[in-house]
């Protein structure tokens, strides 16, 4: 019996569920460093949910413990963005996703570690120290939602929220061997998310299995009048439509993936695709000719939007002035964003990046037009060892295969495909806008195939 059924049947109380996670965090998070802050009211909140369960009026997430990335506002807890800049900033309100989780009786267990202001792909740039990969000790967990992925992999929470600007949910999901979903841009409200790059950011779930990821996604998805970029979509119900039957599904695999990802990663991805073929899907080749332009397009866009987003951290309203206390990667991005913004009258960088973004979006949608999904590797290489010296451009290269989904605004999901040595490797699925269900079904089929 899974934890959701145990909670619903009363075999496990919300308080017991939360308590066991708090004990695990207390005992083992000293080594992992997945959390920046644990919710001191978690037990009290769990007791209130137990009352609702007894009265038969509890919501879909009743009693589930949910870890939240530290760039999402949770009233009364610190939203530090893993930076000294905001080290003492206590959120005065709940983000829309948190309101929706609370409405369904989920319990926020704590705020997770991350790359500082989500600027990183390794989980090493946090002011609060690097996070360990529970699935491959000594290696990075990936980032920037490092603590959220690690919390799931280490069994410190049932579910977690991350944010994904260029792969920040999918990259750590792949490295830690968990499920992660980057929704269609606009499906999940960003109200209450401290932005890295507003035209790319999306909040999404991380989980140990596809069903729970689908459950959290259906709770947080949907239109929000507070935010102009949310899409006017009806209430989603992914869990009731989950199906491992892939008959009729066509899955594309781009030959360009083989140029950029390590051979052993491609081998695991193809192995997973063979399992899906055995479950009814057919695999065909697709083309993504501008894949090599995705990374420069992404970073030239991010530098400018991040620079703009950080101008509020001037030391007057929120803690410290960012340039005075931030780490190297954040400072580098601010310098680059400032320079590009000053030079932008010539349209030399940002405008050109926007033009390439149009091209990449067009190519992704064209490639998807003849298939249900595009599947491929998540990262081009295996996670490096914590503390290893990595050149900034080599670090950015981790994002090569995840940024196209953000640039195109389409959904993408990651699930473990296999292992290389003892290191998990994730397969990534892309779909057309708002076709998250197909991604979930493919991952569900793969999960069933592995069980």
């Amino acid at each position, binding site marked *: 019996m899974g934890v959701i059924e145990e909670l619903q049947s009363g075999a496990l109380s919300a308080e017991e569920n939360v308590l066991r996670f708090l004990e695990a965090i207390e005992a083992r998070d000293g080594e992992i460093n997945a959390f920046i802050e644990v919710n001191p009211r978690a037990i009290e909140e769990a007791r209130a949910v137990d009352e609702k369960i007894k009265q038969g009026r509890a919501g879909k997430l009743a009693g589930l413990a949910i870890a939240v990335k530290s760039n999402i506002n949770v009233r009364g807890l610190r939203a530090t963005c893993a930076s000294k800049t905001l080290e003492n900033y206590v959120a005065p309100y709940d983000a829309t996703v948190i309101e929706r989780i609370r409405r369904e009786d989920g319990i926020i267990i704590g705020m997770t570690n991350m790359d500082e202001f989500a600027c990183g792909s390794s989980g090493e740039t946090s002011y609060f120290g690097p996070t360990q990969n529970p699935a491959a000790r000594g290696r990075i967990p990936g980032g920037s939602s490092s603590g959220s992925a690690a919390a799931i992999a280490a069994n410190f929470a049932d579910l977690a929220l991350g944010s994904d600007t260029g792969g920040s949910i999918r990259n750590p999901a792949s490295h830690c061997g968990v499920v992660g979903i980057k929704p269609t841009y606009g499906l999940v409200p960003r109200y209450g998310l401290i932005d890295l790059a507003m035209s790319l950011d999306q909040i999404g779930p991380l989980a140990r299995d596809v069903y729970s990821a689908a459950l959290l996604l259906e709770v947080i998805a949907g239109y929000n009048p507070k935010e*102009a970029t949310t899409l006017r979509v009806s209430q989603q119900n992914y869990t009731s439509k989950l199906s491992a039957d892939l008959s009729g599904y066509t899955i594309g695999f781009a030959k360009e993936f083989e140029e950029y990802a390590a051979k052993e990663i491609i081998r695991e991805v193809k192995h997973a695709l063979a399992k899906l073929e055995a479950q009814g899907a057919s695999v065909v080749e697709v083309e993504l000719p501008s894949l090599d*332009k995705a990374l*420069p*397009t992404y970073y030239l866009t991010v530098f400018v939007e991040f620079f703009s987003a950080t101008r509020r951290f001037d030391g007057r309203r929120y803690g410290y002035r960012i340039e005075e206390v931030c780490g190297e990667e954040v*400072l*580098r991005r601010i310098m680059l964003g400032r320079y590009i913004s000053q030079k932008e009258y010539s349209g030399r960088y940002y405008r050109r990046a926007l*033009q*390439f*973004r*149009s091209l990449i979006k067009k190519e992704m949608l064209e490639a998807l037009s003849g298939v249900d999904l595009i599947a491929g590797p998540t990262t081009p290489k295996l996670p490096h060892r914590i503390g290893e010296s990595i050149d900034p451009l080599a670090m950015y290269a981790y994002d090569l295969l995840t940024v196209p989904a953000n640039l195109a605004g389409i959904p993408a999901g990651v699930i473990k495909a296999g292992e290389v040595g003892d290191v998990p490797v994730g397969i990534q699925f892309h779909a057309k806008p708002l076709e998250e269900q197909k991604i979930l079904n493919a991952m569900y089929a793969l999960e069933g195939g592995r069980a």
Partner: protein
Amino acid sequence: MDEEKVRREAERVLKELSEALGEINLEETYYVVEEINVTRNDAEPELNPEFRKAALKIAPHKDDEGYYIAEVGSWV
């Protein structure tokens, strides 16, 4: 932190990313959402010719050409 090193790396990052991007000749640019203006339809602004007259009528100081004369702030 060695800020000079960060600056040098930033210059190299920009040069390499810009070169990798190359040139493009495409009219389109990407917008966050297709609905460029979600609050109202684009339209010509409406002008009320009576507004200026009504506003000047209650202005404490005005000149012959129909402009307000603002007071100099007391803190200047």
